[in-house]
C-alpha cells in the first residue's frame, strides 16, 4: 500500500478516535450530579486515599530539589535562592506533574481494571437492564471526583514539598528556619500557585478519562482487562506530560 494512503488512513482513524473520546468525555461531564452518593465514594477513592502517595512524592521531591538547587546555586554563589526556587518549582511544575503522574499510576489503573472487569463480566450490561445509565453511574462520578480532587491534592503536595525543602534546608544546609520560610513566601506569586492547581484539574480529567475510556471499551476477558489497564496508565501519563507542556506554554 502506498505511504500517502497509509498516512491518510492513520490520520482519519486518529481523528475519529479523538472525536469518540471527546464525545464520551462530554457525555460523562454533562451527567453531573445524577448520583451524589457515588460522587462522594469516588472522592474518597480518588482523593482521600491518594493523599499518602502524593504527600510522600512531594516530600521527597521538595527535599531533593533543595539539595540540587543548593549545590547548583553554590557554583555562582547563589545558594540562598533555595527556598524561593523550591517553592516556585513545586507550585508551578513539580507539584502538579509528579502528583498527576502518581495519581495516574494509582487511579487510572484502578478505574480501568474495575470498569474493564465490569464490562467483560456483563455487569455494565446488567446496569442497562436495571434502567441505569452506565455513563451517569460509573463514568461521571469518576471524572468529576478526579477534577475536584486533583487541585486539592496538588495544593497539599505543594505545601508538603516546601516542607520537605525546609527540612533539608534547616537540618542539612544550615538555613535559619524563619528566614527559609519567609523567603519561600516572599517570591511566590498567586498565579504560580493557581496555575499549578488548574493544571491539577486538567490532569485529573486526563487520568479519570483514560481509566474510564479504556475500562468501558475493554473486551476479551482477563487479558483484555490487563491490556485496558496498561493502556490507561500509559495514555494518562503521556497525556499529563503533553498537557503540562501545552498548559505551561499557555499560562506563562
Amino acid at each position, binding site marked *: 500500500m502506498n505511504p500517502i494512503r497509509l498516512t491518510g488512513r492513520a490520520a482519519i482513524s486518529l481523528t475519529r478516535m479523538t472525536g469518540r473520546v471527546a464525545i464520551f468525555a462530554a457525555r460523562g461531564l454533562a451527567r453531573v450530579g445524577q448520583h451524589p452518593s457515588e460522587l462522594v465514594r469516588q472522592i474518597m477513592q480518588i482523593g482521600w486515599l491518594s493523599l499518602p502517595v502524593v504527600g510522600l512524592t512531594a516530600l521527597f521531591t521538595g527535599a531533593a530539589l533543595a539539595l540540587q538547587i543548593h549545590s547548583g546555586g553554590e557554583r555562582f554563589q547563589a545558594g540562598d535562592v533555595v527556598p524561593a526556587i523550591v517553592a516556585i518549582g513545586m507550585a508551578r511544575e513539580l507539584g502538579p506533574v509528579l502528583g498527576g503522574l502518581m495519581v495516574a499510576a494509582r487511579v487510572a489503573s484502578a478505574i480501568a481494571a*474495575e470498569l474493564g*472487569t*465490569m464490562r467483560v*463480566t*456483563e*455487569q455494565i*450490561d*446488567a*446496569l*442497562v*437492564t*436495571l*434502567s*441505569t445509565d452506565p455513563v451517569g453511574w460509573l463514568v461521571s462520578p469518576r471524572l468529576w471526583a478526579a477534577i475536584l480532587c486533583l487541585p486539592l491534592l496538588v495544593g497539599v503536595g505543594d505545601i508538603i514539598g516546601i516542607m520537605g525543602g525546609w527540612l533539608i534546608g534547616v537540618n542539612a544546609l544550615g538555613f535559619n528556619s524563619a528566614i527559609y520560610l519567609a523567603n519561600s513566601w516572599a517570591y511566590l506569586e498567586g498565579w504560580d500557585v493557581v496555575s499549578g492547581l488548574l493544571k491539577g484539574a486538567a490532569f485529573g480529567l486526563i487520568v479519570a478519562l483514560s481509566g474510564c475510556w479504556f475500562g468501558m471499551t475493554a473486551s476479551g476477558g482477563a487479558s483484555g482487562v490487563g491490556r485496558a489497564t496498561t493502556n490507561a496508565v500509559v495514555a494518562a501519563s503521556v497525556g499529563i506530560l503533553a498537557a503540562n507542556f501545552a498548559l505551561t506554554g499557555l499560562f506563562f
Partner: protein
Amino acid sequence: MLAVRGLSKAFGQKQVLDSVDLDLAEGESLVVIGGSGTGKSVLLRCILGLEVPDAGEILWRGRPLAQHRADFMDDFGMLFQNAALFDSLPVWRNVAFRLLRHMPKARARAIAIEKLARVGLGPEVADLYPAELSGGMRKRAGLARAIAADPRVIFFDEPTTGLDPIRAAAINALIRSIVDETGATAITITHDMSSVRAIADRVALLDRGRLRWQGPVSEIDRAGDDYLRDFIAGRARPMARVPAS
C-alpha cells in the same frame, strides 16, 4: 406484544443469527432451546440492544423497541447467564438495586430479603459480597435481582444451570408461578428438558441461527422434527453437521 422480525447478527465470518422471527404474546412464557453456541444468548442481547443487530427489527407493543427502550427497561428484569452481579455491592444491594432509587433503604432491604427467600437464600446471605457465594448461589441471587421489582417482562438465561436437581425444580416452579401470578411475559433459555416442561407455554428450537421448530409445549413430544426429538431424548448426534441451506 414483543415481536422479532428478520433478526440477523454475525460476528466476523460467523453468522450467529440468520433472519430470526419470533412473536410473544402478553403473559406468555416462551422457552428457547438449542445447542450450545447457537446464539440463544446473542438473541436476548440483540432484543435488548446490548448487541447491535446487522438486520431486522424488534417491535414492542407494535412500535420499534429502539424508540422507547427506556420505557421497556423500566418494567424489565434479566437474569444473565453468568449472573453478572455487581461485585462491589453486597448481595442485598444487588437485589434491591432498582428499588433503592425510589424507596427508603429499610423497605428496599426488606423486599430484597423476601426475594432472596423466594430463591432459597437465607437472610444471612444478604450482607455477603457476590465473590463469597457459590456459582449456584450467585445464579439465584441474580434471579432475585431480576424479579425484585416485579417486572412485566423477564428474560432468564439458563436459570437452572449449576443447581442441584431439587433446587432446579424449585426454581422452575418459581418462574412458572411468577408468570401465572403476575402475568409477566417471559423468555427462558435452557438446556434442561424438565425446565422446558415446567416453564414453557411455547417452545422455540434455535439451530444454526434459525428457528428450526416452534410450537406449544404440549406438542414437543409429537413433533416430527428429528433434531428436536434427539434434543428431548438427549441422544448423541454427529457433531459436525452440514450448514443449513
